[in-house]
């Protein structure tokens, strides 16, 4: 077994590196690689991805393994699982980390099972015990509890980490690039991605944003969600929603915040016409400041927010947004 600490880059559909990769590199350097006395390494899996090695180096990667294969052009579970498992078997790292994204959640547990490793998901803290075991903290029980988990004597020790939990801090290195070629036969990839549809957005991603403005069922229509987008854009915030709003077709699924949807932890979370269900709070309850606008004084959210207005959103939001606009144009 080597002492290497690996961070697997999480790539967006457009091929760029997701921020959580840099956060994980920075935190792994600070909390794990030093104590373990091993190299911090990046892992790139995809097709035509070696160009990203320098970006990983910027956040401290001393070495970057590149698995470059035509069959890995778009994310597919089996291709990624084969690529990372084979790489792990060959180089035997001590710790392997990835982002807890839609893709990370999909293939990381499969890799762990394939190589017989332990894996924890969605860590919000990572550390190393004195006897060099990975130790993590995460949310459980609808985010009402935070367990600390320590790895037993198996290798590698694998975890995904929650986006926006750590600071990305630059520590420029010129990484050694290692060709991690693994053999993948097209017959190994049994599940086929037959369609990918994405539409770009100029707003920040929910899991990466410092501010989030979310709307609930009370918005009443897709058309009315413009109030959410206007305020979000004014604040440079991401736009979110509850399941009830998504279900009603007011906005797309990738805006859903909560137990099923995205977990966010911004400095400012503004909840508009949202009742404050346990499932919604499971995804945003750790936000630093929570603001609620709701017309029902009995709404549960008023028991667990910092600031609030009891009022009709259609009365309150236009002047509020206008004042934010005035403020923004001043500064």
């Amino acid at each position, binding site marked *: 077994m080597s002492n290497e600490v690996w961070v697997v880059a999480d790539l967006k*559909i457009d091929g760029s590196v997701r921020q959580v990769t840099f956060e994980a590199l920075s935190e792994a350097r600070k909390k794990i690689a030093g104590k373990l006395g091993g190299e911090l390494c990046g892992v790139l899996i995809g097709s035509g991805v070696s160009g990203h090695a320098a970006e990983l180096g910027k956040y401290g990667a001393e070495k970057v393994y590149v698995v470059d294969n035509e069959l890995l052009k778009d994310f597919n*579970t*089996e291709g990624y699982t084969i690529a990372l498992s084979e790489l792990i078997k060959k180089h035997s790292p001590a710790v392997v980390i990835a982002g807890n*994204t839609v*893709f990370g*959640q*999909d293939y*990381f*547990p*499969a890799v762990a*099972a394939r190589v017989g490793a*332990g*894996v*924890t998901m*969605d860590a919000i803290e990572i550390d190393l015990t004195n006897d060099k075991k990975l*130790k993590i903290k*995460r*949310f459980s*029980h*609808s*985010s*009402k*509890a*935070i*367990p*600390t*988990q*320590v*790895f037993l004597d198996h290798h590698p020790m694998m975890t995904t980490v929650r986006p926006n939990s750590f600071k990305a801090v630059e520590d420029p290195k010129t990484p050694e690039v290692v060709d991690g070629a693994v053999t993948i036969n097209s017959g190994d990839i*049994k*599940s*086929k991605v*037959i369609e*990918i*549809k*994405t*539409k*770009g957005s100029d707003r920040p991603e929910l899991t990466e944003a410092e501010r989030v403005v979310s709307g609930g069922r009370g918005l009443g229509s897709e058309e009315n969600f413009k109030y959410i987008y206007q305020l979000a854009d004014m604040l440079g915030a991401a736009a979110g929603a509850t*399941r009830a709003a*998504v279900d009603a077709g007011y906005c797309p*699924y*990738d805006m859903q915040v909560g137990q*099923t949807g995205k977990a966010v932890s911004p400095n*400012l979370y503004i909840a508009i016409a949202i009742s404050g269900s*346990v*499932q919604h709070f499971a995804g945003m309850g750790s936000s*630093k*400041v929570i603001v609620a606008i709701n*017309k029902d004084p009995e709404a549960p959210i*008023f*028991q*667990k927010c*910092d*600031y*609030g*207005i*009891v009022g009709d959103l259609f*009365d*309150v939001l236009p002047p*509020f947004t206008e004042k934010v606009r005035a403020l923004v144009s001043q500064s």
Partner: protein
Amino acid sequence: MKILVIVSQTQDTEAKIKVSAAGNSIDTEGMKWIMNPYDEFAVEEAIQTKEKHGGEVVVVSMGPARVVETIRQALAMGADSALHILDEGSPDMDSFAMGKIIAGEIRKLGGFDIVFTGMKIIDEESGQVGVQIAEELGIPHVSLVSKVIEINPSANKAVCQKEIDGGHMVVEVPLPCLITCPDAMNEPRYASLPGIMKAKKKPLTEVKVSDTNLDGLARVKTVEIKVPQIERKLRIIKGQDGPMVKGAEVEKSAEELIKLLREEAKVI
């Protein structure tokens, strides 16, 4: 088709969480137990698949004696038979060990075409067990499926939609496969009264975990659990006559909120 659905039992979503005296587990004394909410969607999807293509739905569940109640609920919804993997709460159990044991029992059952399970259990919240089971069984999986577009037993395939950042993905996967279910992919039915009566007579097989080998299976240990305490300020601006701000109060409340966010919270 032989359709499997893996369900688990968990504490009620609204339950107040208390840490046990030992400090590394949750005190479940007096708690209400429910079927893991995500598994309800899995059971519904399994039953709809049977209704469309014929065959049988087999429920698989691991846990102590109390989980029989959850198994009966799935049977009452329309599943046909069940396998209960009895585990009286082994202290060395973790997600990895659980996945191994469940996969081992499913392998013994054999002959299945498709497996459904919830995307995660709302107590542990790791979401790794379903995917791990697929891997152990050597079958492909599609996780977080928002819509099963088609299951086609004669062409031996399933087509599923999965939501990704900024859009969606459609995946075609050969059978047998495993699908993990988020909420909102369907509307779980309630068990009817005749359903509940019939469930009592449906076959339920029990196997004990001690029969399988747990030694050295666990990969992680929970050493401590804390309940996060976030103090919220609860500064709520209300109307003078009636709870809602009205008329001139609206403008003033907006102004006051901006001031609080700027000067007190310093977030804008």
